[in-house]
């Protein structure tokens, strides 16, 4: 069943998301640690009926096609390099 395998790609992606967030939380007190963020993209689409395909010889076209997506994948885990707070330590 396709629906289950498509949904499972979503679960894998969310698992990656939680792992990245957990690592951010674990490094809350790490000096100069930069927050990371997971980014996702959709997988390829299977064309059943291409949008804009002709539906009759009178020149009518299908406004929407039938495209079935295959799920999601993690595209990147990128670092957000914004400035962190400066903390005085008193160490000469």
């Amino acid at each position: 069943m396709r629906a289950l395998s498509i949904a499972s790609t979503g679960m894998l992606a969310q698992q990656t998301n939680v792992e990245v967030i957990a690592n951010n939380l674990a490094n809350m007190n790490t000096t100069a640690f930069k927050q990371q963020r997971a980014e996702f993209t959709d997988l390829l689409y299977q064309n059943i009926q291409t949008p804009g395909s002709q539906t009759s010889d009178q020149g009518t076209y299908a406004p929407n096609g039938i495209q079935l997506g295959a799920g999601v994948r993690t595209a990147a885990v990128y670092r957000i390099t914004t400035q962190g707070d400066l903390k005085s330590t008193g160490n000469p």
Partner: protein
Amino acid sequence: MDNSLLVSLSQQLAAYRAMDVIANNLANVSTPGFKREAAKFEEYITHTRPAEGEKGPQSLSFVKDAGVMRDISQGNLEQTSAPYDVAIAGKGYFAVQTATGMRYTRDGHFSLDANGNLVTSQGYQVQGDGGAITITPNDGDIHIAPDGTISSVVRGVGNQIGKLKVVDFADGSALTKQGANLYSTSQTPTTPATVNLQQGALEASNVQPVIEISHMIEVMRAYEATATLSKSQEDMMRQAIDKLGQMPS
């Protein structure tokens, strides 16, 4: 073969198709710029020979795929604070140059490649009004204005680097999805009258998980109802054969 079994089968195939579309929506609940889709079905009527004692052809309606409708409503803007993350508030698409031609996306997560070009997460160059946009380390902090102008201030002097190209199409729902958050189309891109970009944010997917799950339950119920129909049809045939077999000859 009995007609009612064929009719139920067509409904079950449609339910599978609907479920695939819903599963893809749910899988992409965190994909920036993703637009939810819904499978639409239509009636397909055939005519059969009249049953005994009836006149004229009888019509029999099956269900078949009509298309997949895309909901191109705005997704929520999600703050990321990353300097090269840009969200489109309102209409429009970013133009991206790929090896197979121009592609369009609403996923505004960009970064710099080794040559300082602004690229998508797949490494495709994001198009400005004059081709690729190059940002050097000397440019300092980048500011992206709502109209797409990319600028920075170097030693107190303003410096315009480029302008993000935002295009729109006559029929936004007729774009073909290519995966990797990209769309392709044969339509001619137009320049939208107003462009509203926001730096440091991404447009979240417009999928609402609760609504998708309720659709999923709806499709499941319809599937189960049809399965019950096929089952009772089968029981009826079985009983008929049983009773006929027991008749004294």
